[in-house]
Each structure stands twice: as C-alpha cells, then as structure tokens.
C-alpha cells in the first residue's frame, strides 16, 4: 500500500485523536458512574427513590436521584415551551419576511446572544428576574423568586439563538420554487408560509428544538443561580427545585466517598439523557433526508 500523503496523514491524525478522546471520556464517565453500584453496593433501583440523603453524618443514607432527573426534565421542557414560539417566529421573520437591512441587524444580534457567557445570564437572572418574580408575582406563590420558572426563563433565553439559527437554516433551505409555485396559485404570503414553508421545514425545526433541549439539559451555572436548589420533585413553577448539573456543581468540591460516586452517577445519567437526544436528532435527520 502506498504511503499516505501529508493532507491525509494530518486529517486522519486529527480524527483519530478526537475519536480516542471521545471514547476515553465516555469510558471514564461510565466507569466512575457505576462505582456507586459496583464498589459501594448501592442497589441500582435506589437511584429512582425520591429521597436524597447522602450525608454520612446523618443516620441512613439514600441516594435517590429522582428529584434531580425530574427537575432537569421539568426545567428543560418549560424552557423549550417558552422559547420555541419566539425563536421559530424570529427565524421565520428573518427567512421569509424581513427586508435585507433587518436581517443584517438580526443575525449579528443572534451571534451576540450566543457569545454572552452563562454566568452573566445567571447573574442577570439573580439580580433582575428573581426579585421581579418575588415582588410582582408573590401572590402566585413566588415566596422567594428562586423557582422552577426562573430557571426555565433564563434557559429559554439561552437556547433561543440555538433554536433560531437552526430553524432559520431549515427555512432558507426550502426551495424558492416551492414558494413561487404557491404564490402563483394565488396564495397570500402567510398561506405560503403556513402551508408550504413550515411543513417543508418541519423536521429541521424539530431538530432545532431537540438541539435546544440538549443545550438546556447541560447548562449548570446560570440555572443553579436562580433555581433555589431544593432537592424535591417539582410540583409548582413557583417553588425552588434542582437539576442534575446544579447538584453536581454544588457538591463536587466537598463530597467524598460514596457521596462522590453518586455525583458521578448523576453525570452518567446526564450523559444518557443527552445520548437519547443525539439519537433523536439522528432519527429526525434521517427522516428529513428520506423525504
């Protein structure tokens, strides 16, 4: 076999390094994540308990991860519900409605949104949103302002650029012929968007939402600052809850022994959640290419 030429060697090397890094990382997280069951002998079913009592100084420890799993899913879903109409609307505006000058403003504005660090989002949430909820919606039960809704609203803002830019690409990818054909048949622009562009771009928009959800599941800092971090099953938008990422950052510096292993198990659960989303995105993508 002939020797590989330089470009091939370099690109192949880069690919191998990245693949090796991913495999090692996954292996490490899985290995640390199962220590709780393998080394400390905690039954696997215990992580589905609603009780989180990891403190060895208290009598009887229970490593129930249900509050964190439920909290992560709850915060994430509400964030997507709030963010989706706004970002899909914005993407439609940019792709179909906006004059060129407005598009020139909207696109860099989106990029700025992406560039704001999450700690700044959290800080804004802590200094503006949390007191606002407490002062103006205290009558709805926002006793402290730290709440499920506060976490979801901060996340909604953070995933807005993700959903917007991927949806925008999906709308732009709809062939101009389809729009022209629709308009030629006498539809209004709104009818063309509703009955032609939106259905044609549906899988792309769905992919955008799933990408947004994935981003939301992994965000730690901004959410932790506004959510109150109470390890309970979410029951009210106005009450403090917690998430997997938030609890890991709270305890990782000080937890030792079995407690530390439980944090790695949370990391593994988070990995499985995002893996499920990746599979969902692949599946949606396949649907699109067949269509």
């Amino acid at each position, binding site marked *: 076999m002939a020797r590989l030429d330089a470009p091939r060697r370099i690109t192949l090397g880069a690919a191998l390094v990245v693949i090796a890094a991913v495999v090692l990382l996954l292996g490490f997280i899985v290995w640390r994540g199962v220590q709780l069951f393998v080394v400390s002998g905690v039954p696997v079913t215990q992580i589905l308990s609603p009780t989180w009592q*990891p403190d060895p100084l208290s009598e009887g420890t229970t490593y129930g991860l249900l509050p964190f799993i439920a909290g992560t899913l709850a915060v994430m879903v509400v964030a997507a519900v709030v963010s989706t109409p706004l970002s899909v609307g914005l993407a439609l505006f940019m792709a179909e409605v906006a004059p060129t000058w407005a598009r020139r403003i909207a696109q860099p504005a989106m990029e700025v949104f992406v560039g704001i660090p999450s700690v700044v989002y959290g800080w804004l949430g802590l200094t503006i949103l949390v007191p606002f909820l407490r002062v103006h919606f205290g009558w709805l039960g926002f006793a402290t302002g730290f709440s499920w809704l506060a976490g979801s609203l901060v996340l909604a803002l953070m995933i807005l650029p993700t959903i917007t830019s991927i949806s925008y690409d999906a709308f732009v990818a709809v062939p101009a012929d389809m729009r022209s054909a629709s308009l030629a048949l006498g539809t209004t622009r709104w009818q063309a968007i509703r009955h032609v562009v939106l259905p044609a771009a549906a899988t792309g928009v769905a992919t955008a939402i799933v990408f947004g959800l994935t981003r939301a599941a992994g965000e730690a800092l901004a959410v932790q600052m506004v959510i109150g*971090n109470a*390890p*309970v099953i979410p029951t009210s938008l106005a009450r*403090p809850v917690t998430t997997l990422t938030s609890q890991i950052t*709270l305890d990782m510096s000080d937890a030792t022994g079995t407690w530390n292993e439980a944090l790695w198990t949370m990391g593994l659960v988070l990995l499985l959640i995002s893996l499920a989303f990746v599979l969902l995105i692949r599946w949606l993508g396949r649907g699109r290419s067949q269509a």
Partner: protein
Amino acid sequence: MITTSAKRIGALAIAATVLVAACGGSSSSPAAAATSAASAAAAAANGAAASGVAGPAACVDGSITTSGSTALQPLIDAAGKAYTAACPKSTISVQGGGSGTGLTQVLQGAVQIGDSDVTAESKLQASDASQLVDHVVTKQGWVVVANTGVTGVTSLTSQQLQDMWACPSGQSAPKITNWKDVGGPDLPIVLILRPASSGTRATFKQVVLNGQTECSGQALTEDSNGAVTTAVSQTPGSISVIGFAYYQANKDKVAAISLDGVAGSVANMASGTYKLAAQGHMYTKGQPTGLTKSFLDYLMSDPIQKTLIPSLFYAPIQ
C-alpha cells in the same frame, strides 16, 4: 482571495501576540506594570493584608501547593504571599476547591498541604485519614444572619434555631416557620442552606443543631458565602450562616443575630464563649519536611497568629 485571507489571519495572529505579551507582562512582573495606575492599585490592595506582617525567621527554598477549604483560603493566601515576599526563591501556590478536594488531593500526593474546615476522619475512610497529619493553624467562626427586613430579632437560642432548621421526625416542615414566633414580624422564615457537603453546614449541624437533619425540602441552597450573602440580602424573611470575614464585608446588607446571647466576634470566639466556630486544619501526608514544614511553622509564629489572623477575622490558636 487567498492572499487576502492569509493577510487577515496574519493580522489576527499579530494582535493575539500583542495581547498575550501585554497580559503576561502585567501578571508575571508586577513591578514592571506599576506604570499603570490601575494595576498599581490592585497590587497595593493585594499586598495590604500582608503589609506589616514580618516574614519567616528562616527561608527554605522550593515550591509547594496547597488546596482545599475556601473559608481558610484568604488566610493561607495572605500568609503565603508574606512568606514568598520575604523569601523570593520559594513559591507557595494556594488553591481553593473545597475541603473534600483538599483532603483527597493531599492524600493522592497532588498537593503538599490539604486545607479543611472539618477533620479528615469525618470526610475520609479511617485507613486513608490515618495517613494524614493534622496541623491546626487557626479558628474560624460563622455568624447567623437574617434579611434586614427581619426587625426585632437580635438574638436566638440554639433551641429556637433547632426549631427553625430541623425537621422533627416524620415531619416535612420545621416547628417554627414564621418570624412572629421568635419575636419578629409576621413573615415566613426562608432557610438558606449551604450544600450538605460544605464544612459550614457540617459545623452548624454539629454545634447548633446537635446533629439533627435540616429540612432541606422547603429551603434554598446556595453554594458559597458570596451567593448566600446575596440571597439573604434580597430575600425577605431569609436566614443563613456566613463566615466572619464575609459578614464584616457585608455588614450593611444583612442583619447579624447573636447565638444564645453571645455576639459573633473574633474576641468572643477566641475566648471560647461563642460556639459557632471550628478549627482550621492543614493536613500533610506524613510528617512535613522542607518548605512545607517551614510554611506550617511560619503559620504558627507570632507575625501570623498575632497580626495577620485577627486582621482577617480569624482567631489564633493559643
């Protein structure tokens, strides 16, 4: 086309080099950057704690790292700066990370000293803890603080605090949930806890709650002195616990509450009458040698114990 983008990349590279050179210059040699008024002021603020603190009696050259408790970090950082200011051939790197991290890292040999708010026995397995040597260098205290809107409550007993924080067995709420039951306004009590793994929470649980479990279900949890201070200052009816130094820096934002009639102060902690306090531990793996030993000895010497420690709101070890 290619030449244009190549030029652009070249320009970026030059800009980046200039930027890196500028940053490197100001951090590696403070003296050279003293021409800038801003960095001179920052250097003065950094050195303020160390100024007036005499260096060690004898220098030992070398390089060590300590990590762990963020509550002890300001003290160890200031002491390390005072040591290296007098002994330019030695390097002492001080990192935070939390007590658990410090203990784990010193056990692994990743650092020479692990700083902890709590004993190694309470964090590690007995076989691991027995490899570590404890050096108690100071005493640190915490103040119970409430939102400034909680008027009329200046002192609480341990029993009252237990009734506010602890869940009676089988109950999901504490006995006292409104400030009016302890002489305050008609306002719900909002507990702000530290993460269960923190040394602050462990000390409070042991000293004030007699080991009873906190009602964490209804409470907020914030992970640092700074976050707790912010939350207490802006949440009506909230109560929490913060370190002495953080209270001193935020006196106007939160209201201090005496514990069993004793105010939280360095003097009361040093005399032993204020009980919400704990020893600050520095652990080494085996007996310390070289710079590690010299630095630990320096921490026990008069310049640190009599001058630096009180100035940072810790108490000396007699």
